């Protein structure tokens, strides 16, 4: 019983079942680890009292043989998910001390299944960012460091707190959200597994909205199996979200270890970028070789509109954000700054409450939707989006089961290193992940190796709509071949 924090969820479930330890002991071990790791800034709110209360309740249920599939499993929740009576801020000053009187559907399903809330996790403000540096609570630090260096690295974003906490053993798994890569990119930067489910698979109800046609919730975990376990509890139809799909939730864990023999894996030539680091190229070929060795068939495919996904995203996502964020006006909740008129009150509140990146995106979104520019920008971007989706449909129609790509164009970078002068430099982080959101497809990032600086790198698998199971089967093959990676503890 020496190290209760380094187990996988699957191992902890077994340990709880055979009474090797209690849920309370498991939760206490994590609370201690969280306290000792505050330098990482992964949690923006620790909820130890709630955690112990939930752990005790889980122990009581386990004793009666009524423990759910996640009974006693301590989790961290991205601060974008509304948690009843527990402060939820989206890491924005504008939400201030917002205490939701309701619970998001995804988290309510986790509690239904017995999970324990350890606290709320840091993220980029309103999930807008790729480094977790735009949070009003300050940047999250990646538990990974370059070999022989003390430089603080970013964990990626926007789910940087989730990724950092899972990698640093500060929770057994975490919820996250992905609008352009916000689950998969931080997962790749921290050697964790991140799943962005098909659009409509997880309810968006009670999740602070960024870009509603792109946002999806998903898990970050330490193994592919753990991600599958969490997915089963998070997914499912919800009448409160009209875009939630009325499709049954399969037993994702059953897909782990399933043969991938005969599966056709597409290797898209457009993802081979000029100037791509040799180690990313090498990782990609290795991943392909592992899948081939497991019996899959590799086919070169073409997704001709790939290069237009990121620019189209930077029209569609800000446009939706400008509309969604109109609600923050200082009237019903959150921050209010005084003004002589109601208009001035709105303007002062939003100037004070929104950080630089959020303000930039709201303004871009306002511009591309404004009279005279709508057709040139927004309508054109939505047409390009149709073409991006068609690229994938054409490949799937030719019998491709899944697509293998790198997850990110580089490993984690230093805090403050990117995007200072030109915001687009930061946006390029999502070049391999954003297509998936534009097409509404499922994607998984799996740790696959390390770069020359000893930093983790990930591979991404993209699946057919609602076929997350294939991604879990293929992801497991990569995990088995690559192994799992844990950062050396320095905090």
């Amino acid at each position, binding site marked *: 019983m020496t190290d209760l924090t380094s187990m996988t969820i699957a191992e902890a479930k077994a340990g709880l079942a055979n009474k090797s330890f209690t849920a309370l002991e498991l939760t206490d071990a994590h609370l201690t680890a969280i306290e000792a790791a505050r330098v990482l800034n992964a949690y923006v709110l620790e909820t130890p009292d709630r955690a112990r209360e939930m752990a005790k309740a889980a122990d009581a249920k386990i004793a009666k043989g009524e423990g759910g599939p996640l009974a006693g499993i301590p989790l961290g929740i991205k601060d974008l998910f509304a948690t009843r009576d527990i402060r939820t801020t989206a890491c924005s000053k504008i939400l201030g001390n*917002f205490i939701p*009187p*309701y619970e998001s559907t995804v988290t309510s399903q986790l509690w239904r299944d017995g999970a324990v809330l350890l606290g709320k996790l840091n993220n980029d403000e309103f999930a807008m960012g790729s480094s977790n540096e735009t949070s009003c609570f300050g940047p999250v630090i990646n538990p990974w460091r370059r070999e022989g260096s003390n430089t603080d690295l970013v964990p990626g974003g926007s789910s940087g707190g989730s990724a950092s906490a899972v990698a640093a053993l500060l929770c057994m798994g975490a919820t996250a959200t992905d609008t352009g890569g916000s689950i998969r990119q931080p997962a790749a930067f921290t050697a964790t597994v991140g799943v962005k489910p098909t*659009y*409509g698979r997880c309810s968006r109800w009670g999740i602070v909205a960024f870009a509603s*046609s*792109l946002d999806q919730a998903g898990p970050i975990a330490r193994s592919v199996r753990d991600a599958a376990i969490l997915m089963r509890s998070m997914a499912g139809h919800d009448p409160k979200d*009209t*875009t939630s*799909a009325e499709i049954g939730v399969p037993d994702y864990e059953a897909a782990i270890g399933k043969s991938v023999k005969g599966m056709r894996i597409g290797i898209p030539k457009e993802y081979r970028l000029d100037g791509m680091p040799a180690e990313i190229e090498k990782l990609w070929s290795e991943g392909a070789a592992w899948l081939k060795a497991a019996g899959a068939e590799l086919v070169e495919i073409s997704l001709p*509109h790939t*290069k*237009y996904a990121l*620019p*189209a995203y*930077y*029209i569609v996502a800000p446009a939706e954000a*400008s509309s969604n964020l*109109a609600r923050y*006006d*200082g*009237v*019903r*909740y*959150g*921050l*209010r700054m*005084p*003004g002589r008129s*109601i208009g*001035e*009150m709105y*303007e002062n509140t*939003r*100037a004070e409450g*929104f950080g630089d990146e959020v*303000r*930039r995106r*709201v*303004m*871009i979104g*306002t*511009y591309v939707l*404004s009279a005279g520019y709508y057709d040139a*920008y927004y*309508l*054109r*971007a*939505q*047409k*390009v*989006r*149709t*073409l991006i989706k068609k690229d994938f449909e054409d490949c799937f129609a030719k019998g491709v089961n899944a697509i293998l790509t790198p997850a990110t164009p580089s490993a984690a970078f230093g805090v403050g290193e990117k995007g200072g002068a030109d*915001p*687009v430099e930061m*946006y390029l982080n999502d070049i391999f992940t954003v297509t998936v959101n*534009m097409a*509404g497809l499922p994607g998984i990032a799996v740790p696959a190796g390390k770069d020359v600086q000893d930093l983790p790198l990930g591979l991404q698998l993209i699946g057919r*709509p609602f076929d997350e199971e294939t991604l879990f089967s293929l992801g497991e093959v990569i995990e088995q071949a690559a192994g799992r990676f844990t950062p050396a503890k320095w905090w």
Partner: protein
Amino acid sequence: MSVDATTVRRIAHLARIAVSDAEVPHLQGELNAILAFVEQLSEVKIDGVEPMTSVTPMEMKKRADVVKDGDIADDIVRNAPDAQNHFFLVPKVVE
């Protein structure tokens, strides 16, 4: 396309975000960097392409027009910066 300082002020007003004169040049540069980046979309042939309205094929669902909850006024105003008797308070709108 790029935006000038007047347009930046107009966008800020449309977005209801107060922007000081000192911030305008900086914002203008950032917005123009993003607009220059998205400019490449103009090369895409989009003739006859339908704009995407739903990323997964689904019919717009409509809920039944029934009252499902109520009597939660306390909950609704609980987070308000200023409220009185279950009303949100704002600066005077009509003189």
